């Protein structure tokens, strides 16, 4: 593994790393992340821990639908349940890299060693975030199973659009991780109390992602923001793949989408295309943000500080 003359921490050092090295580093970080996340408890306890948050979150929203009663039909319930179950993955993906920065800097005090290792910090954080995303995916899957078993969610495996599901997942997960990297860039600058920033950020994302209500209920500027958000398209794609013909979060009477395109709701190809485009832009912006934050952290000596209060 060659390291360029750019020196430790210089972004140019990545030039010396081949794709194989980068993949190896990301894989190692993913495995490390999995061990760090999972080895504090026995497997049964860890499994319970993994699902308890997403299931509770889903129940919270399902209850909101249930108490409204007659005015909320079965399709609304399915819409909300599926959206909230998927949300666990997003929250994990967002929190993963940010928490890795805070943990490695403040708790284990290894961030400086990671930074000065041969691997690039960005790749390592993607790996760490990936492990948390996988854990979040487990939570989402169990939440959906719970919804099928207890909440009357009906999923017909034969009707699931598996290619669309696979494509939405493959295209949707990188921008989710990219958003996490963006938050990691923020946490690189902020103090230890930033632990709940990912939660606060994902709570705000809830508003503009069409997870539990159609974007059309938002004011126009927020609706437009929602359409630029890759998470909106990811959730819409997964939802459409699992429940084909179900209600969509994008489009509908009075929506910006319908006003602009004249169609009631986007089709699978449009969803995937929009997911790819918005995802690519988000990934580029998040990477640039992280690079800028990394540079500033190095300039200000933030990589090995402890900041508790």
């Amino acid at each position, binding site marked *: 593994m060659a390291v360029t003359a750019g020196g430790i921490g210089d972004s140019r050092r990545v030039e010396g790393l081949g794709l194989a090295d980068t993949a190896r580093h990301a894989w190692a970080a993913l495995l490390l992340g999995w061990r760090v996340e999972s080895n504090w408890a026995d497997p049964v306890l860890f499994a319970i821990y993994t699902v308890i948050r997403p299931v509770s979150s889903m129940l919270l929203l399902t209850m909101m639908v249930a108490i409204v009663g007659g005015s909320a039909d079965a399709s609304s319930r399915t819409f909300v349940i599926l959206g909230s179950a998927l949300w666990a993955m997003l929250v994990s993906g967002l929190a993963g890299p940010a928490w890795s920065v805070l943990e490695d800097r403040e708790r284990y005090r290894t961030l400086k060693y990671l930074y000065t290792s041969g691997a690039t910090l960005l790749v390592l954080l993607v790996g760490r975030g990936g492990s948390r995303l996988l854990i979040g995916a487990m939570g989402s899957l169990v939440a959906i199973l719970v919804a099928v078993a207890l909440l009357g969610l009906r999923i017909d495996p034969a009707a699931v659009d598996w290619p669309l599901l696979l494509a939405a997942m493959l295209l949707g997960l990188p921008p989710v991780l990219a958003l996490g990297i963006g938050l990691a860039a923020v946490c690189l600058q902020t103090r230890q109390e930033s632990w709940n920033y990912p939660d606060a950020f994902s709570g705000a994302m809830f508003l503009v992602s069409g997870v539990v*209500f159609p974007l059309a209920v938002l004011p126009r500027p927020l609706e437009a923001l929602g359409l630029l958000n890759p998470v909106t398209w990811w959730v819409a794609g997964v939802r459409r793949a699992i429940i084909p013909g179900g209600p969509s979060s994008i489009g509908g009477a009075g929506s910006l989408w319908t006003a602009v395109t004249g169609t009631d709701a986007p089709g699978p190809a449009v969803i995937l295309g929009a997911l790819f485009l918005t995802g690519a832009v988000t990934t580029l912006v998040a990477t640039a943000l992280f690079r800028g934050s990394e540079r500033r952290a190095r300039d200000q000596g933030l990589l090995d500080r402890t900041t508790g209060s």
Partner: protein
Amino acid sequence: MSAPHSREPAAGGTPRAMTPAERRRAPDPRAAADWTARQTAETNLRALVGRAYPRVRGMFREPSWLFFEIFLPFLGTSAYVLVYRALRAPEAYVGFVVLGGALSAFWLNVVWSMAGQLYWEKSQGNLELYFAAPMSLMSVLLGMAAGGLAMSSTRAVAVLAISALVYAVPFHVAQWWLVAAVFALTLTALYGLGMMLASLFLLWGREAWHLTNVMVEPVYFVSGLNFPVGRLGAVGIAAIATIPFAVGLDAMRQLAFPGSGLLTGTPTPEAEALILVAMTVLFSVAAHWSMGVIERMARSRGSLSIRWQ
């Protein structure tokens, strides 16, 4: 070494309370170690202020929290408001969501800044210094809470005020004194619970952190963060009996939105105020007792200063 002792005895050798300066000049170590109840109480009070100090200072030193602790939570609360609007639920539910969103700031403060905090203090090397100092650890925990309260209160007031304005929430408070009493009792019971949890978590390493993490959504659900807790039936009653957040939130809702007809199946606000009094006493006593027991267990196991668990 037989030089005559240069420390001056306390005036007249009487057991009157020595000032801290006198205490440092006490004639011999045994006299210096004997403190009156007043001295002990004064030291604990000062420790409380001392520990709150960095948190309050931190608020001003790094203002990024204004965005993450006020603006984003407002957006998160808005998302739940819009769920009800999308479901065409009665407007009273919007008020429930706004109140829940505001009060959740205090639960988050208890969970993040108190219950799991001793684990962080251990990681940072502060815990053993706290134990080696003459004040009670309870005063340190209260100091953390008081410092965090400044930020939480700002968040709660901001979310409440902005949401109430934006979503035109109709509050109809008739018994202000009872609202104030219930609010104060909710805080005392919450922080009593926080202290109890903090002492229990003293024995653990990362488990404490993960338990802290897992106490957010499940507690939100059983406490009825966004809906009347009475609608959960037996689960809601159990929450009212055990979780200060649940009982405080329900009482505040009853007092802020009387006559909505949607808050059924729970005790009256007066009865819930009494429950909060009982919780305050119970949790405070339990926290004091468990802190003593668990400190001894931790000293026995040697876990007070083990880091990176």
